[in-house]
Every structure is written in structure tokens, then in C-alpha cells.
């Protein structure tokens, strides 16, 4: 598999805390991996919930490796190629699972200067993503990693909202924020989560009023509720899950 052979689809999932963006990410992952796609999952939320939702334990984070570079830089051989060192550290931070790789960003930047290490990271990440059919990023609503351009162009930005008007307004704010980012975002969509029969119509109306592209409405799912209570992963949900059915429909609409 030479690099560059893939046209890598890059999807970011974001939303206000508590809307279930990590659950949506995990379910989209499930769809992609089942479809035999090689996926890189990136947990770019400092809360780091994606590993739990996917049901895997992680060894390292990218944040750790970035700190390593900062702390050790005066101890490297003077002429060492730091990009090559960091690349190796990024690879070490990748958690290799069955069917996908998981990269957790982990701790945010400290007070020092990250200009140089982030500049190296940009190049490394750009090359790394070409190894995958799809990259799916679970990210906080502030989109900080995108403002640092650590992750290259986004094809689809999915804003997850709950039924509330406020959740929808977050969606609106995020789509405005996208315009200010240096990272290019081709499409912005909204996916409503935890939708019930009683609020479905209102959600659709709200999306229309705010001029948002509502891609789908994922219903409240008993199986997910049970799993959430028990702290079980969502990656291996059964096909009959109503949420999974809607996610599969959304994924098909997105051509995933």
C-alpha cells in the first residue's frame, strides 16, 4: 500500500458537551470498520472518552510525546533530525486496534512554546493520514486543534446536537466558527442525537430556521442507555439498535 494511494476522507465530529458526539463518533467508526475501511480515529477532546466508547485501552497519547519533545530537546544529539524523532514518537502514540488505529491527543499544551513542535507535527500528520481510507476526529466544540492546523483539511464536519434549541444554536455558532478557521472545511452538517417522537418535528424546524443541514436524527436507544449505565463500549452495538440503523443511513448519505 503505497502512501497517497488512498483518497482519505477526513471527518470531524463536534458538539456541545453531553450531546453524545463521542457516541456518534464510535457508531460511525463501527460502520466504517465493518465496511472494511482502514480508519484512524483521533480523540481530540481533552476529556478523552473515545477509547471507552470504542472499548479499548490506550498506552500513550500524542500530548505525552509532544511534552517528551519539549523536555528532552536539549538532550538529543545536536544534529539529530527532530522531525524523524517526533514521527517515531507519534507512531508510538498510535494505539493499534483490530481494524483501526486510535490516536489520543491527551493533555493540552502547557505554557511553553509549541510553535516548532506543532510545525513538525503538521507535516507528520499530513503524511500519516494518507495511510488511511478515513480519519474520524472526535473534537471539542472550541475546535482548538483545527485552529492550530494540526489536522489538515476536513471534508465533513458533523455537529452533534441534542433536541434543545441551545444545542442547535451551538451548531450555528460552530458553523460560523468554521469560517474563521485556517483549516478548510468542505461541508458542515448537523446530526441531532437522542431524538424522541415528541421533539423530532421541532428539531427539524429549528434546523431549518437556523439554516443548518440536518443530516439525520438519531433516536433515543434503549440499548445505548443500558450500555452507558454499565460503562460498556458502543463500538460493538448490535445491528438491531435503532441508533445504529440511523447512523448507517447517515453514513450512506455521506457516501461512507
Amino acid at each position, binding site marked *: 500500500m503505497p502512501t497517497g494511494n488512498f483518497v482519505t476522507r477526513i471527518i470531524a465530529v463536534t458538539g456541545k458537551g453531553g450531546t453524545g458526539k463521542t457516541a456518534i463518533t464510535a457508531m460511525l467508526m463501527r460502520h466504517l470498520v465493518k465496511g472494511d475501511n482502514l480508519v484512524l480515529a483521533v480523540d481530540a477532546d481533552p476529556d478523552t472518552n473515545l477509547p471507552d466508547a470504542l472499548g479499548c485501552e490506550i498506552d500513550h497519547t500524542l500530548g505525552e510525546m509532544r511534552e517528551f519533545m519539549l523536555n528532552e*530537546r536539549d538532550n538529543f544529539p545536536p544534529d539529530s533530525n527532530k522531525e*524523524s524523532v517526533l514521527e517515531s514518537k507519534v507512531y508510538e502514540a498510535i494505539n493499534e486496534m483490530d481494524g483501526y488505529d486510535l490516536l489520543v491527543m491527551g493533555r493540552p499544551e502547557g505554557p511553553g512554546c509549541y510553535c516548532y513542535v506543532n510545525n513538525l507535527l503538521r507535516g507528520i500528520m499530513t503524511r500519516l493520514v494518507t495511510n488511511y481510507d478515513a480519519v474520524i476526529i472526535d473534537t471539542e466544540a472550541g475546535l482548538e486543534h483545527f485552529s492550530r492546523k494540526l489536522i489538515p483539511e476536513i471534508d465533513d464536519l458533523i455537529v452533534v446536537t441534542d433536541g434543545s434549541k441551545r444545542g442547535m444554536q451551538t451548531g450555528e455558532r460552530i458553523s460560523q466558527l468554521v469560517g474563521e478557521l485556517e483549516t478548510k472545511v468542505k461541508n458542515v452538517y448537523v446530526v441531532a442525537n437522542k431524538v424522541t417522537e415528541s421533539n423530532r418535528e421541532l428539531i427539524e424546524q429549528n434546523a431549518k430556521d437556523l439554516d443548518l443541514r440536518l443530516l439525520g436524527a438519531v433516536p433515543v436507544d434503549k440499548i445505548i442507555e443500558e450500555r452507558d449505565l454499565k460503562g460498556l463500549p458502543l463500538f460493538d452495538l448490535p445491528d438491531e439498535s435503532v441508533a445504529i440503523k440511523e447512523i448507517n443511513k447517515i453514513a450512506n448519505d455521506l457516501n461512507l
Partner: protein
Amino acid sequence: MAEFPLEISPMFEGERIRKNDMYVELAGPKSKGFELVRATDSDEIEDGKFTLIGPDISEMEEGSRYPFAMIYKIGGELVEPDLEAIVERRNHDFYNYMQGVMHLNQRYDIWVRLSKDAVNKGLNSFEQMAAAMMSLFKNELSFIEKIEAVYITDPEEIDKELENAMEIYKERDERTANLHDEDVDTFYGCTLCQSFAPSNVCVITPDRISLCGAINWFDGRAAAKVDPEGPQFPIEKGEVIDEVGGEYSGVNEAAKSLSGGEFDRIKLHSFFEYPHTSCGCFEVVGFYIPEVDGIGWVDRDFTGNAPNGLPFSTMAGQTGGGKQVVGFLGIGINYFRSPKFLQADGGWDRVVWMPSHLKEKVVDYIPEDVVNKIPTEQDVGDISELETYLKETEHPVIERWSEEEEETEAEEEQPEQPESAPSQYMTQMPASMPSAPSWTSSASSGGVKVTLKNAKVSIDRIIVKNKE
């Protein structure tokens, strides 16, 4: 000679081999190994010869992990030990040209994976890889006339050879560390900080690391080679204008164009005269302490107040923004290790305070005669304690005080006038620096002549005396 059974092309650079697709892992974070290039007398090289010590690929189980070392002996009329590191670096590139082979990192941190796909397509011996590598080295680096390769997968043999290799790396690093500003024609500039400090001019030389501490001269060289239009780029040194201060015509020209004309002179190793600009990323800020005519240093990790009563954050705020701020200077920690550290201003003899953890980091680089005379927050808390400490330890900076005092005495004609003690000298922020000329003004009316002399900072002292 064995043929590599897959494609060899730069297009395979960046190819990642996942655990599930991997036939065998060699060296890496969970094992050990190294890569080493040795300049060798041509007579001792059997060109194209390959030796394997330990099991071959065909003897390795799928999914297993082995230690791995690669040693290349290179010979040729132009081959010399200084080229070893450069050639060694190419091993990474060329390895990644091989389809189904992933190579990461360098030296004793190498990490190699061979794909199942490659093994299925006929890769069964290291000889196939070594042969491909040797021909790549010779084709791409024409000064290599003869080359021989030794690969090791036997753990004990690797331990033995690694010890030798570590010695060689160490010697090499010592040679590298001996590279100085005068040994090169090219410095490097960096504009990463210009997004928030638009007039910042970061100049990176063998004796001066970037202010953020992240980019040394070798990093600049490597980055500029890959992308000369990128954030790190070459600066031709040009003519030497001031060797001690570190002023070069090429740097001045670069300063002018990078700062949009705001600065046209930079002295790389000077605190007081045309100092380097300070971005905002610097690891340490230096601050002039006029009361003792010395320089204190405080770093980002020090949360208390420096003897001047200010914390890092306040001084960093005054210093940053890409300006030449006289009296303050941002630097990278590694600059303390430079033999040219502020050599225009007396270097370490001018350093009068730094936080203890920072001092610890660089203590090996502080000259012996001054190391125990530089106080930290554990020794002094304010300026008057600092002054006492410097006097008691006979810090070299006090010679500067006595020079001033002598000067003062020589000109004192009527010492009955009030006189300020050295500790009250120059209490304002330095408006002009020690190099500023002294000047005299006279007041004709009232029969009083006012002499201002040695006006280094604000006013050195005032003597009021009878009109002659």
C-alpha cells in the same frame, strides 16, 4: 546478488505498516538496535559484501520481534569521518523507499517493520534489503566508492556492538558541539513567531539556539534543505562587522527585510547594544539590574519574583513582541551553554542572579571561578541582599563598581556634597545604556554649575559645587 522483490521508490516514504499487516518488527521501542555508518579504509572493504549475524527473515516467525542493527562501512577518496552522520541519515530515507518496509527514527532508536505483503511477495532475506541499500547509497551519494554491510539480529552480538556504537556517537556529538559561528558561512532564520511578533528576527547560529529553545543550527539546516521557502531558511553570514558582539552584514540585511525595516543591526552575542529581538516564545528572559550593573535571568518555570520584584510573566510581557528591548533579552536555555554567551558584555561574569532549577540545568557550563558567586532565590530575595551577596562572594561584577567609584573619586573636587551610594545608582529603568557617553551641562544663572556624569541609566550622580 539478491534482488529486492518489490518496488523501490521515494513514493513509498511515509508508508505505515500496522501491527496487523506486519510480518516482523525489528528494533523499536520494545526492543533494541542501532544503525551506524563508518568511514573505513577502502582496502579493508570488500565492495558489496553482506554479512548477517543472527537469524534471517526466513527464520523469523510471523508477528515476532527481533533486535536489529545495521552497520555500513563506506570507503572512497572523499569519504571522511565527518560524512558518517550525513550518510547515516540517508539510511532512513532509503529504507523507506523499499515497498513494504517501514523505518523510523535514527541511531539507537531505530524502529523497522516488514510487511506480510512483502514477505508473501518473496522478501525472505536481509541480503535482498542490504543489496538494495548498498546500491542506493552508491547511486545517490557518488563519493561512496566502496560499501559493505553488516546486519545483526543476534541479541548478544547487538549488545556488544551497541557499546562500541555508543562511543562512536559520543565522539561524533563532541565534534558536532565544537561547531561555532566562525566555522560556517550560513546561519538560519525562523519566522514561526512572526504570526504574533511580526517584526521578530530569529537568527539561529551554531552558538545561538532559537529563543524558544527548540531549533538549533542543525534543525535550521535540515528544514531549509527540505523547504527553503518554509519557516526556516538560510541567512548568508556575510562580512564580520564585530566578531565579539556577533555582528554580520548578512544578518543585518536579513534583520532589515524580516522586520520590515524596523531593525537594521543585530549583535547576536550582546545584551546592551543592538540585541537580538525577543518574540514571546523565549524560555528565559534576562533583565538588567542597574543597582549592581549585572544581568539576572528568570525562566518560565519560576513562579516567584526575581530580585527586582518582578515575575517572569511581567518581564516577558515587557520584552516580547519582536522588539529590540534594551535592558531585557529573551533567550533559549541552551544559549547558556554557548561559549559565546553574551561575550560582548562579559558573559557569565555579568550574570548576577538566576533561579536555582535553571542554574542546575546549566551549571556544568558556568565557569568555575564564578559558579559559586551567582546567587539564586535560595540565597537572596531583593536587591540589597543581592548586593551584599555579590560583595561577599567577590563576584567579578563588583570590579565594575570599583571602576565607577575610582572614576567618581578622581572627579570629585568637593566631596562634601551629598553622594548616593551605589545601591541607589540608576534606579530607573535603563533609558540609555552603559555605552552612552557622559555629558555635562552648566547652568549659568545662580552661580551653580551642575555636572551630570557617567549617565549610564538615568543619572549617575549629581554634584553641586561653587562656580569657579
